[in-house]
């Protein structure tokens, strides 16, 4: 039931366009626009939901109830907050570099949005089934470093500057174990196409064959998404809000929403690379593939939030030390072990 609901909608739109005699190129373009807007709507809805979810989970962990006034059970709280932030004044500090300062919140949402293009939401449900999907995704997500740095530099604030320096140092050094962890999976599957990687997990998910890679990827992912215990970029108790210190109103909201979008990206990557993507566990295929996909993604997001509201924050030198002295060697070792394993398996002809 509902297995092909999105595919059916897509083919219905395409059929409609064909039937009214739209040329093929135009219908392709229209389909792209439909898919892009669907992705943007999807991200926005998800992010709005994630903000609420984070607040609810943090409240429940902290013996509170959390937002419960706006809308039924507080579900419209984030909507109200976004409206509030939109109506607030966008302050520009006198010492700010205006162009960069204003540009950063405009473009900050782009990298996560771009990343969603190649994500296979369900069986055959990628907007673009790209042959180098994993590579594209890693490349695109690492762009956000520059945008955070833009915001930090443009603010003309020392707290922002410190936060910006931390962004660059942290993201650059955690990009490495992140990619190296994925390399183990890619070595086994021999492809960079996400759909094929998911298909390759038909028998066993890679979390079981590559547990170390999963752990490294998860830790590096927490760091990439700037979440506790690696939320040095914001580090509320040290540098106020890092790069976002001077931003107000919608500018701040964009940064905040991006943070959740990147959590979503990391969780989706985890799901695809290690948790079998849309594949149903135990052959429970009575639920549609996209349902399983979202269930896994949300389990990962819950894990992120659970960790965030339990752990304190690590220090900046410890963060770098941990990244370079622990995660990178471990991920290299993982690649080495994976290679040996593959060689052994191949030689015994498995």
């Amino acid at each position, binding site marked *: 039931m509902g297995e092909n609901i999105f595919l059916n909608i897509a083919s219905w739109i395409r059929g409609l366009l064909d039937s009214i005699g739209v040329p093929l190129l135009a219908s392709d373009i229209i389909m792209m626009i439909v898919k892009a807007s669907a992705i943007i709507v999807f991200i926005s809805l998800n992010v709005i939901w994630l903000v609420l979810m984070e607040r609810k989970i943090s409240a429940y962990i902290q013996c509170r*109830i959390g937002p419960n006034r706006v809308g039924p059970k507080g579900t419209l709280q984030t909507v109200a907050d976004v409206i509030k932030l939109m109506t607030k004044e966008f302050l520009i500090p006198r010492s700010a570099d205006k162009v960069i300062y204003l540009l950063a919140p405009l473009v900050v949402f782009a990298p996560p949005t771009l990343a969603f293009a190649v994500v296979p939401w369900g069986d055959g449900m990628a907007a673009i089934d790209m042959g180098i999907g994993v590579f594209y995704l890693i490349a695109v997500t690492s762009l956000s470093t520059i945008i955070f740095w833009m915001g930090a530099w443009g603010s003309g604030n020392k707290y922002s500057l410190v936060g910006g320096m931390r962004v660059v140092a942290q993201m650059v050094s955690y990009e490495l174990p992140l990619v190296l962890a994925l390399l183990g999976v890619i070595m086994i599957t021999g492809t960079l196409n996400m759909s094929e990687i998911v298909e390759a997990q038909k028998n066993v998910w890679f979390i079981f064959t590559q547990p170390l890679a999963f752990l490294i990827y998860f830790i590096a992912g927490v760091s990439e998404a700037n979440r506790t215990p690696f939320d040095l970029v914001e580090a509320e108790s040290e540098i106020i809000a890092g790069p976002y210190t001077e931003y107000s109103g919608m500018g701040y909201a964009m940064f905040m929403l991006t943070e959740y979008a990147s959590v979503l990206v990391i969780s989706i990557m985890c799901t695809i690379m290690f948790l079998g993507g849309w594949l149903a566990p135990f052959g429970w295929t009575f639920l549609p593939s996209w349902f399983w996909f979202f269930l896994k993604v949300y389990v990962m997001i819950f894990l992120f939030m659970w*960790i965030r509201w339990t752990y304190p924050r690590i220090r900046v030198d410890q963060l770098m030390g941990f990244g370079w002295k622990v995660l990178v060697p471990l991920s290299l070792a993982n690649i080495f072990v994976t290679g040996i394993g593959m060689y052994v398996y191949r030689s015994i002809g498995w």
Partner: protein
Amino acid sequence: MFGKGLIKGLQITWREMLAQKVTVQYPDEQIPLPDRYHGRFELDADKCIACMLCANACPNKVIQIERTRVGKKQYLTKYVMRIEYCMFCGLCVESCNQDALRFSKVFNMNQYFRSRVRLTLADRPAPAEEPAEEAGSEQEAKKKAPAPKKPAGAGSEAAAGKS
């Protein structure tokens, strides 16, 4: 083993997540206040003998009392508390021998304007059965005005109000 503390922390937060919540949804439900709660002041003006003990006990000179002599007794005409300066320490209530001044459980004393914060607990004319007596007391009040701690301006104000 490294990581044991991390797992323990996750266990604790998981347990708390499922536990009973402690917050109270304020306007809908309220925690019962204890009997000794320091809320808004209440004055039983009939019990008050205008002895000025509370006004003198106050560290911040919050209490302003106006009184006139009716017969042989002091009679309270006006009792104003400048709540904006009050620390709610309870020394005035403690000093009251007549049990006239008390704390209530009203804690909602917010006002939009500073001028409205001031709390007038009693504002009543002196009983005027004996005009001659009253006239005498008025003079006396004027004479006395500087002597009691507070109402230097208040005494003349009362006189002005009466004439």
